[in-house]
């Protein structure tokens, strides 16, 4: 909970001692920002303990990125209507922006990169697009 609050999360944070298909954490939009819910699942801690996987902080930063996309007045309108896959890419970039730990930031860049690569784009095009998106988000936030 402290980690989510440190990233600026508004709303409720809960832990569920179950294995989900979410990968460890999930953002749920409520009727107001205060009613938003960030759920952390058991596998988040398994992944955090694995040196070859995301840290708990990186996972929570990504979910906080979803809240910022959904709630930030200048971003929410632009993001509405985007595909789920596109929103995941942006959430990773916003998550990277709010991460103070550079290793977590780089891991979230990597996640956004892999998501764009899976659409069949070249590595060069992906790098260029992510840099453009980063600068756009920086200007809007």
């Amino acid at each position, binding site marked *: 909970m402290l980690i989510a609050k440190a990233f600026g999360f508004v709303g409720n944070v809960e832990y569920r001692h179950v294995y989900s298909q979410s990968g460890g954490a999930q953002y749920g939009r409520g009727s107001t920002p205060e009613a938003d819910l960030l759920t952390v699942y058991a596998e988040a801690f398994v992944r955090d*303990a694995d040196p070859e996987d995301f840290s708990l902080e990186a996972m929570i930063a990504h979910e906080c990125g979803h809240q910022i996309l959904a709630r930030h007045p200048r971003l929410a309108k632009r993001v509405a209507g985007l595909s789920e896959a596109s929103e995941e890419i942006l959430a990773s970039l916003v998550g990277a922006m709010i991460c103070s730990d550079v290793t977590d930031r780089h891991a979230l860049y990597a996640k956004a990169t*892999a998501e764009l690569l899976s659409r069949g784009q070249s590595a060069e095009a992906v790098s260029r697009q992510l*840099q453009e998106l980063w600068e756009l988000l920086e200007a809007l936030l």
Partner: protein
Amino acid sequence: MMGTKKLSTIRKEIEMALACTGEDPIQRLEREIESAKSKGDRTEVMEGLKRFLESPRKPKRRKQRAPAKK
């Protein structure tokens, strides 16, 4: 949603994509960073990716976290 893909799998996918021309992935990123900088473009995402690929499989550092309230 965070997704279930492990960071190590993501690393392999990025390395494979960057190596598709036969070039070393890190050298390719270095070349792209230099090229972007010479045009006056920003490069923090590419530099972050390069750092990510350069520092694989480090043991996880222990972070100081507040103890749970009882």
